């Protein structure tokens, strides 16, 4: 039985490798200017993205505006990952989470003067940088996902170094999962608002705010969905962190 499984897996892997080796003949070469991807869709984005969306960063224009649905379901996948981690990893034993502050330092915590001092300097910079990345996502690198992850890193440092005494607050994993849901809700609400104004789902130029140019409404819409993405990503990472931390406490 075991041998059959190994042979089956080997056949599948060899087939996949053969497919990868054979495929480049029918796929267009990387950077081929004549390929369908490069010949009209990219050209359209490059020529019209600033005019259409008002976003200087073309990546943000594509992710948040042209492909808003794609990003919406990516955010949903993040949320789903957090929920799944919560279901699989969290213990069924009743733990009084309000007593958490006065517990002994966790087994999974890291202490020491150097760590404490170093991260005391680093944390405020990370938080400010996260807001910068979020606000400048339209014009430079970055955007909602990176900003949310940076905020989560700040929380993470605060959580695993006990001398900070959880000064950024203490989220339970359930609260983090709910916050992630709020992030997805903000995103979907931004998509629904144009529908009250006679537009389609995520059609930013129909957002019910007064503006002179459609590009301004596009910028507003992009900022609104980025807020949703920031909240969802941050809360999901915190959620998984809390679940893993609780698991390490639970095991001893």
């Amino acid at each position, binding site marked *: 039985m075991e041998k059959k499984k190994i042979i089956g897996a080997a056949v599948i892997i060899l087939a996949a490798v053969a497919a990868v080796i054979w495929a480049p003949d029918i796929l267009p070469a990387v950077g081929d200017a004549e390929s369908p991807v490069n010949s009209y869709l990219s050209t359209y984005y490059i020529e019209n993205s600033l005019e259409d969306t008002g976003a200087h960063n073309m990546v943000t224009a594509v992710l948040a505006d042209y492909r808003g649905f794609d990003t919406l379901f990516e955010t949903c996948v993040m949320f789903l990952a957090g929920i799944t981690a919560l279901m699989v990893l969290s213990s069924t034993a009743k733990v009084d989470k309000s007593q958490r502050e006065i517990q002994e330092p966790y*087994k999974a915590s890291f202490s020491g003067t150097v760590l404490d001092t170093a991260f005391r300097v680093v944390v405020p910079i990370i938080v400010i940088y996260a807001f910068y990345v979020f606000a400048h996502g339209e014009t430079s690198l970055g955007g909602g996902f*990176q900003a949310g*992850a940076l905020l989560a890193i700040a929380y993470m440092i605060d959580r695993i170094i006990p001398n900070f005494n959880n000064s950024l607050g203490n989220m339970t994993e359930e609260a983090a999962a709910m916050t992630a849901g709020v992030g997805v809700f903000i995103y979907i609400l931004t998509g629904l608002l144009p529908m009250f104004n006679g537009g389609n789902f995520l059609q930013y130029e129909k957002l019910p705010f007064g503006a002179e140019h459609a590009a301004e409404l596009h910028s507003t819409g992009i900022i609104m969905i980025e807020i949703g993405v920031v909240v969802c990503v941050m809360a999901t990472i915190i959620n*998984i*962190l809390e679940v893993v931390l609780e*698991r390490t406490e639970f*095991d001893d």
Partner: protein
Amino acid sequence: MSVIILEGAFLLLLIIIAIVIIFGKDLLALTIIYCAFSFSAMMLYILTGAADVAFTEAVIGVISTVYFIIAIKSINRRCK
């Protein structure tokens, strides 16, 4: 030309790191090496011109390393 050599070096590094991670015994050391995997992937993204993806990779590399280290603190560091 030099960019292609650099890309080749980082791709080779990715393969070497993957093989080392499969056969290594010390989980904490392997986690740090995995961080280097993330770094080479990030450098590859930068060389390809995808700075946004490189930024995400850098941030996610930090987060996954912290997850792994927290998990390793609660189990035996060396595997058989």
